[in-house]
């Protein structure tokens, strides 16, 4: 087993009854990596996570962890931790007993158990709350209890289901930092599921973008953000002007439009961020449909022969009025080249 395939999913197919949720999925995750499974709801990311945890039996394929085939290993023997989106704390137990729950089942000696629980609570800054009940804690505190409860078990992989989605904006930043710190300090392999690309970009070492039960793209946050390979990923990371390309021409509702420069033959689509659109000069013309001030920039929505175009330019430039016709350009060198449309 190499460290680069500490956890590997091989041709994994998952289904609920007759509905296939994930098909032929292959994924290698290295030891100590922090991975984001990113995608819209229904893309199979949570299903994939549940199968790694052992809560869902695969229809086909294999899951290997640390050199062992765990496909048929029961969930309670996998050494995989899961922090639930709703935290799933035991309401009848104190914070201390929640964290001690798994250790008690392992019949660990009392002094060691107490030490590990206390260390666990301390590492998430909740020592003072050991005797409280979950219902007496805030959402952020409950989540940290759930994190400590999984971490004291020293799992080989820690899974987190939408770890930030139930928190308010300020707590989200705090929790993000907390997760990164815990991960770096423990060196644990972490996989978290999210539908929020900002979260994935900020937190993960590598992002796995999923759609319709398949992997669309795997890459570092930079790769995903700058060089999306498909129209879906491009749209997901903020390329709002996405076009299919056929025979080197942009496919639009008004018919094909030739490009001033040659488009490589393997390109199936082109995508521009609003900031990549040039306004005030260029080969196309559009009518301003809407405009909004966004602080350092100003956003425009244009009606054009290519369809609706979103542009974002420096707020220092003189503003255009609604209804005004302006020239614009989609520079090929600023476009993301999509391999799939």
């Amino acid at each position, binding site marked *: 087993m190499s460290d680069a395939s500490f956890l590997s999913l091989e041709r994994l197919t998952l289904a609920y009854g007759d509905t296939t949720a994930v098909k032929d999925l292959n994924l290698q995750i290295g030891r100590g990596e922090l991975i984001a499974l990113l995608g819209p709801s229904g893309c199979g990311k949570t299903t994939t996570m549940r199968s790694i945890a052992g*809560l869902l039996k695969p229809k086909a394929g294999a899951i290997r962890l640390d050199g062992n085939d765990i496909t048929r290993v029961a969930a309670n023997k996998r050494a995989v931790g899961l922090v639930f989106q709703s935290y*799933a704390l035991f309401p009848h137990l104190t914070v201390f007993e929640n964290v001690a729950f798994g250790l008690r089942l392992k019949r660990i000696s009392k002094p060691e158990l107490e030490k590990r629980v206390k260390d666990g609570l301390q590492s998430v800054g909740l020592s003072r709350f050991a005797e409280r009940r979950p219902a007496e804690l805030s959402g952020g505190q409950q989540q940290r209890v759930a994190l400590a409860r999984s971490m004291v078990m020293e799992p080989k992989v820690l899974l987190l289901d939408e770890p930030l989605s139930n928190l308010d904006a300020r707590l989200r930043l705090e929790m993000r930092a907390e997760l990164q710190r815990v991960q770096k300090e423990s060196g644990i392999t972490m996989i978290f599921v999210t539908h929020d690309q900002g979260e994935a970009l900020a937190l993960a070492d590598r992002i796995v973008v999923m759609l319709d039960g398949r992997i669309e793209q795997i890459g570092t946050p930079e790769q995903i953000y700058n060089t999306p390979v498909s129209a879906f990923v491009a749209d997901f990371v903020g390329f709002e002007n996405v076009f299919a390309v056929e025979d080197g021409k942009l496919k639009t509702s008004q018919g094909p439009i030739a490009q001033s420069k040659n488009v490589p033959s393997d390109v199936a689509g082109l995508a521009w961020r609003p900031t990549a659109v040039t306004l005030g000069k260029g080969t196309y013309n559009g009518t301003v449909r809407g405009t909004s001030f966004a602080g350092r920039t100003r956003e425009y929505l244009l009606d054009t022969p290519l369809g609706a175009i979103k542009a974002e330019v420096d707020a220092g430039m003189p503003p255009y009025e609604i209804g005004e016709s302006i020239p614009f350009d989609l520079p090929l060198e600023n476009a993301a080249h999509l391999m799939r449309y």
Partner: protein
Amino acid sequence: MTSRFVSSAILTAVIIFLIGPFFIIVAASLSAGDTLAFPPRGISLKWVLKVFQIESFQSSFLMSMGLAIFGTLTALAIGTPVSYALARYKLPFGETIRTAVSAPIIVPGIIVGLALLRYLVIPFGFNLTLALFLAHTALVLPYAVRVVSASMNNLRSDIEEAAVLLGCTRFGAFVRTVLPNIRGGILAAFILGFVTSFNQVPVSLFLSGPGVRTLPVDMLAYLETTYDPSVAALSALLAFMSIGIVFLAERFLGFSRYV
């Protein structure tokens, strides 16, 4: 103003009709006279003491107690897993099961009793005590399922998965995370079932025989031959027992949350 007067009049009437009989029975049971009467003639405790000397009351009391306790426990043993399954799984006939389980509440007791007599006891020679036990279990089952379901529905299913991932078996997860959280509901269902079973008349009426009688049926039989205040005294004692149970349940469990 008038509407306020009307509503308080209605309220007063309701309270009188609900609680009035209780006071009448308590008063009648303290009578010193020889027949059941209100207002009582003189005050004495002799009829209250007489209750404890009537032998048939002792045996029928034990019968009712036994039925109430074991019938309710059996109903809970069946009803708790049923509630769990109904709450956790999409069962193919979930709604049908829910309806079937509630049937004994909907079907009049007199019909249940007659049916059991006609189709279980008479053709198969069923032991009456066994028939009574089965009938009471069935009558209490709906309460068990309803009340336990109510507390089960408030419980998230992912805590069991969390317990499994921390090393529990599926059954261990149920015992360690579900049971402690529905304990209150189970106790509430037990009390409700116990009181229902204990006060049950129509079904038990059909399933009586020599030496096999529940307490309420025995009281009716007693009244037919002897019209003295001892029945009132027994009723008052039973009412105090029910009040005591419900009071303790409310005190320690917040019973009203579950019913």
